[in-house]
C-alpha cells in the first residue's frame, strides 16, 4: 500500500520498525498535495521546506532511539484558525491576509513537541462561520468524493486533506459541528472533545464558550492517538480542565474488538424525521442494528429542548463572535484599508473602511446579529434567554445519560450538497448543523464516524456518538467498535471507494 493510504497508527508502527522515514512520509504527503490540491484546494498555505526540516529532525530522533512520541514523524495539517509561529494564519479571512503570528497555539506547540511535521494550513469558512468552506475568502474547498460538492465546514480543508490522502492527520476546531459535519460528508473521522479537554490558547476564537480543538483523521484509533497528543490541561487557558485525560487510545483499541456488550446506546428521538435524507437515515439505522448485534442495548431517549438548540446557538455564537472580531481594526496587524479620497482619515474611518473591505458577508451578518443580541434592552430577551435554554439543553443531556452510556444520531441530516446550492439561504446552511450543535452548547464530546454511502447519491454519511463531559473514552470505544463492524461489512475502508482525483489514482 502506498504510504499516503496508510493510517497514522500504521505509519507510526512503520517508523518505529525503521521501515520508513519521516522524510519519506512527509515527501509523500507533499507530493500528493502537489498532485491533487489544485482541484481539492484543501490547503491555504503549504510549507514544504519547514515540513521536511521537521521530518529530518524527527528521523534524527528515531535514529538516536529517542522519539518524542508514538506519532513522532507522522505529518499533519493544521486548520488555519490555529496560530502557528512563522506560518501565515488567516482564518480564511481577507482581514488577516499575510498575518504571521509570533507564537504557537498550545495544540500546535504540543504537536511540534510530539515531533509531527506540519505540512501547512488548511482552508476554512471565514472565522469558522459556515458549513461548506464556501465562505473562505480564498475560494472553497472541493469534496474529494465529488469535486462539485462541498466538503462540509467550517473545517472542510482539514477533512478534505485527510479524505484526499494529502495528510494522514489534521487538526480541526468545532464550534457547532465544524469537525464532525465535514467528517460525515467526506467519509472521515472527526472528534470534538469535551469542552475544556483541549487548550484553546492560540485558537482564534469564533465563540469562546463553544469552540473546541480536535482531531481530524481517517480512523478512530488515529483520532485517539492525536487527541492524546493535544489534550490535557493548559495553564494558559483557564477554561481547560485540570484533570488527566481518560485512556483514549486504550478505549479505541478495546472498541476495535467489536464487542459492545453491556453498553447502553441512546437514540435521540428529536434528531430524525422530516428533512432527514432517507439514505442517511438508512445507514444510521444499519449502524444501530450492527451495534445491537455487537451486544449493545438500545434505548430511545428524548431531548425535548434540542428543538431550540439552533436558535440558542445563533444568539450565543454571534454575540461572542461580534465581540471577538472587534480586535480586527487595522490598528496593530492584518489588513489596513484607507477610505477612498481621505488621506487624512481618522482612526475610526480607517477601522470602518478596513472592516468593510476585510470581512465577508457571513461574518458581517453574524457581527450584526451579535451586536443586536447584546444591545442594552435586548440582552435579557436574547443573550440572557439563550443562556437559560442552554442550561435546559445541558439538563436534557444529563437526563439522557442517566439512561444511556452514549447517545447516537446521524452527524448531519444530508450528504454533501452542491457548491453554491445553499449560499444564498443562510438558514438552510445553518440547518446542516442541527445534530451537532447541542453537544457544543452542553460541552459534551462527540465523534463522527463514517456510516457508509447514501443510496440516493453514493455519497458518505456519518454517525455521531456523544458521551457525557469528560467521558471522551466512550466516544472512542463505541466509535471504534462501529468502525470495525462496518469495515467488516464493507470489506475495506470506505475511502477506497472514492473516485480518483484529476487522473490521480484513487
Amino acid at each position: 500500500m502506498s504510504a499516503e493510504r496508510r493510517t497514522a497508527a500504521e505509519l507510526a508502527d512503520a517508523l518505529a520498525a525503521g521501515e520508513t522515514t519521516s522524510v519519506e512520509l512527509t515527501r509523500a504527503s507533499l507530493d500528493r498535495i502537489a498532485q491533487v490540491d489544485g482541484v481539492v484546494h484543501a490547503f491555504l498555505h503549504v510549507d514544504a521546506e519547514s515540513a521536511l526540516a521537521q521530518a529530518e529532525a524527527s528521523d534524527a530522533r528515531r535514529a538516536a532511539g529517542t522519539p518524542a512520541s508514538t506519532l513522532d514523524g507522522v505529518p499533519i495539517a493544521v486548520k488555519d484558525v490555529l496560530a502557528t509561529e512563522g506560518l501565515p494564519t488567516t482564518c480564511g479571512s481577507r482581514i488577516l491576509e499575510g498575518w504571521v503570528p509570533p507564537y504557537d497555539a498550545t495544540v500546535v506547540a504540543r504537536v511540534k513537541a510530539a515531533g509531527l511535521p506540519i505540512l501547512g494550513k488548511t482552508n476554512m469558512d471565514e472565522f469558522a462561520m459556515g458549513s461548506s468552506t464556501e465562505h473562505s475568502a480564498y475560494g472553497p474547498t472541493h469534496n474529494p468524493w465529488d469535486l462539485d460538492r462541498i466538503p462540509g465546514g467550517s473545517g472542510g480543508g482539514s477533512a478534505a486533506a485527510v479524505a484526499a490522502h494529502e495528510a494522514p492527520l489534521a487538526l480541526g476546531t468545532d464550534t457547532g459541528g465544524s469537525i464532525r459535519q465535514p467528517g460525515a460528508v467526506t467519509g472521515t473521522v472527526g472528534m470534538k472533545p469535551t469542552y475544556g479537554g483541549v487548550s484553546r490558547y492560540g485558537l482564534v476564537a469564533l465563540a469562546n464558550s463553544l469552540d473546541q480543538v480536535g482531531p481530524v483523521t481517517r480512523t478512530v484509533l488515529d483520532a485517539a492517538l492525536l487527541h492524546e497528543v493535544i489534550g490535557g490541561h493548559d495553564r494558559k487557558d483557564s477554561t481547560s480542565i485540570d484533570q488527566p485525560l481518560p485512556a483514549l487510545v486504550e478505549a479505541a483499541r478495546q472498541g476495535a474488538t467489536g464487542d459492545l456488550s453491556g453498553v447502553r446506546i441512546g437514540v435521540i428521538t428529536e434528531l430524525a424525521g422530516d428533512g432527514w435524507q432517507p439514505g442517511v437515515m438508512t445507514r444510521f439505522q444499519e449502524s444501530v442494528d450492527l451495534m445491537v448485534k455487537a451486544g449493545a442495548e438500545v434505548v430511545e431517549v428524548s431531548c425535548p429542548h434540542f428543538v431550540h438548540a439552533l436558535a440558542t446557538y445563533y444568539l450565543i455564537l454571534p454575540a461572542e463572535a461580534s465581540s471577538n472580531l472587534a480586535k480586527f481594526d487595522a490598528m496593530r496587524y492584518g489588513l489596513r484599508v484607507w477610505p477612498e479620497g481621505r488621506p487624512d482619515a481618522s482612526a475610526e474611518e480607517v477601522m470602518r473602511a478596513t472592516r468593510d473591505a476585510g470581512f465577508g458577508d457571513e461574518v458581517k451578518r453574524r457581527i450584526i446579529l451579535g451586536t443586536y443580541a447584546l444591545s442594552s434592552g435586548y440582552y435579557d430577551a436574547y443573550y440572557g434567554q439563550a443562556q437559560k435554554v442552554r442550561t435546559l439543553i445541558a439538563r436534557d443531556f444529563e437526563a439522557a445519560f442517566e439512561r444511556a452510556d452514549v447517545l447516537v444520531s446521524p452527524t448531519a441530516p444530508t450528504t454533501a450538497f452542491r457548491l453554491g446550492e445553499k449560499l444564498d439561504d443562510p438558514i438552510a446552511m445553518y440547518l446542516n448543523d442541527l445534530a451537532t450543535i447541542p453537544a457544543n452548547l452542553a460541552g459534551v464530546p462527540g465523534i463522527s464516524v463514517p456510516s457508509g454511502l447514501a443510496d440516493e447519491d453514493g455519497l458518505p454519511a456519518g454517525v455521531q456518538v456523544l458521551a457525557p463531559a469528560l467521558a471522551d473514552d466512550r466516544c472512542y470505544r463505541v466509535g471504534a467498535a462501529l468502525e470495525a463492524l462496518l469495515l467488516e461489512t464493507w470489506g475495506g475502508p470506505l475511502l477506497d471507494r472514492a473516485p480518483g482525483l484529476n487522473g490521480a489514482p484513487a
Partner: protein
Amino acid sequence: MTTATGPTLVPFDDVLAAYDPALGLEVHVELNTATKMFCGCPAAFGGEPNTHVCPTCLGLPGAMPVVNGKAVESAIRIGLALNCEIAEWCRFARKNYFYPDMPKNFQTSQYDEPICFDGWLDVEVEGETFRVEIERAHMEEDTGKSLHVGGATGRIHGADHSLVDYNRAGIPLIEIVTRPIVGAGAKAPAVARAYVSQLRDLIVALGVSEARMDQGNLRADVNLSLAPKGSGVLGTRTETKNVNSFRSVERAVRYEMQRHAGVLQAGGSILQETRHWHEDTGVTTSGREKSDAEDYRYFPEPDLVPVAPSREWVEELRGTLPENPLARRARLQADWGFTDLEMRDAVAAGVLGLIEETVAAGAAPQAARKWWLSELGRRANDAGVDVADLGVTPTQVAAVQALVDAGTVNDKLARQVFDGLLAGEGTPEEIVAARGLAVVSDDGALGAAVDAAIAANPDVADKIRDGKVQAAGALIGAVMKEMKGQADAARVRELVLEKLT
C-alpha cells in the same frame, strides 16, 4: 467647549442658598502587582514603549487571559478595608467599545457581579464625620496610552497621527465607586477631597498600590449634580475626569457646583457628559457626550472562569488588614501629644502618613508636624501640587531635622536645605556642605564677631555691664547680621554674657 467668555459661575454661597449638591466619586487604583491582570508581563511603570507586552495584553488573535491571583487578593483586601461584602462568586465581563489604545476593542472588567460591594468609609472634615457609602469595587484592566503627535495641544484634536504604547495595557485596576454623597452642603468640596485623600492613605497602608496621583496610579473621576434645595431628588450629573490631585478634587467640585448653578439659573439644563479638568486654568471643559446611546454590550467573559474566593481565604485576608483609619488617628494623636486642633489641621492637609513616616525616621512629632504643615505645605501650595508630591521625602525631612537638633543648621538655614533638596543637590548633609550652610559655633570666629559688636555698640555694652541682660539681644542681632545668619544664636548669647558680666 467653553465659549471665549467662559461659563457663568455663581458665587459659592449663592449656590448653597439655592441648591443641594450630590457627589459621586469613582477612583481607579492601579495595583502594584509584579505582573499584569491577565498575563505574565511586568506591570512596572514606564519602560521603553511596547516592551512590556505579549500576545495576551496586545490582544493578538487566539491569545487568552488568565487571572492574576495576587490582584484578586488585593481587590479583596481593599474591599474588606472599605467594609464591603466580598462576592462568593463573581465573573469578569467584557465592556465593548472601539478605541485604538484598547487592544481587543473590549475592556475586561466586571459588570453586575463586582467582587466587592456595599461598603463604607468614614471621612472626617473639620471635626465632622461623613459616612461615604461604597457601592462597589471591581477588578479590571488598564488601557494603553495614546500619544497624539503633530497637534498643538497633545490632544487628539488637530493631531497629525497618534502613537500607542501598550505597556500600561492590562495593568490591574480596582475601580471604587461611591453611592451618591448627599447632605455635605458647603463641605461638599472638602468631603470629596477628604474621601480621596483618606482612601489613598488606606491604599498606601494596605500596600497594594504606589497610589501616586501624579503618576496616575490613583485616578479620580468626580461626579457632581445639583438639585433644588430641599427637593431630595438627584439632578443631572457631569463626570469630570483627569483630576490628578487632592487639591484638584476639591477645586473641581467647587467649580462644577458654581458652573451647574450658572447653567440652571439661566434656565438651561445640565448635559450628562464627561468633562475634562484643566489643572492650569482651574476649569472644566466638555468632553464626549455620555448618553444612553453609548452601549457597552456587557456580557460575561467566556475565556475566564468565575472567581469564587473561599470564606476561609477572605477571613485570612481580613486578618492582614491595617488599622482602621479613625482608630489609627486616635492612636497617633495620643502618641504624638497633638492638640485636637493640631490633629485636625494635619488630617485636613493630608499629611498624617507623612508625619508618621517622618517620626519613624527619627524626628520629633512636633518638628515633623511643623515642617509638613508650614514650610512644605506653603511650598506645595505655591507649586500647586499635593505636599506628598512635592518631591521631599519623610526620610529627608527627618534628616534635616536631625541637623537642626544637632545645631548644625538653624530653622532659617534649614529652609535653604529644602531649596537644595528640591533642586536635587543631594542629601541634606551634602547640601549643607556644598552651600556652606553650617552655623558657626567656632568660638574663635564667633568671639571676634562678638568683640567687634561690643566695640561698635559701647552704650549697649554698658547697659549689659550694668545688669540689663535683656539688652544683649541687640548685640546678638548685630553678630547674627555680621555672620549672615550662619551663627548659633544661643552660643553667641553665651559669649556676649561671658564677656560683659
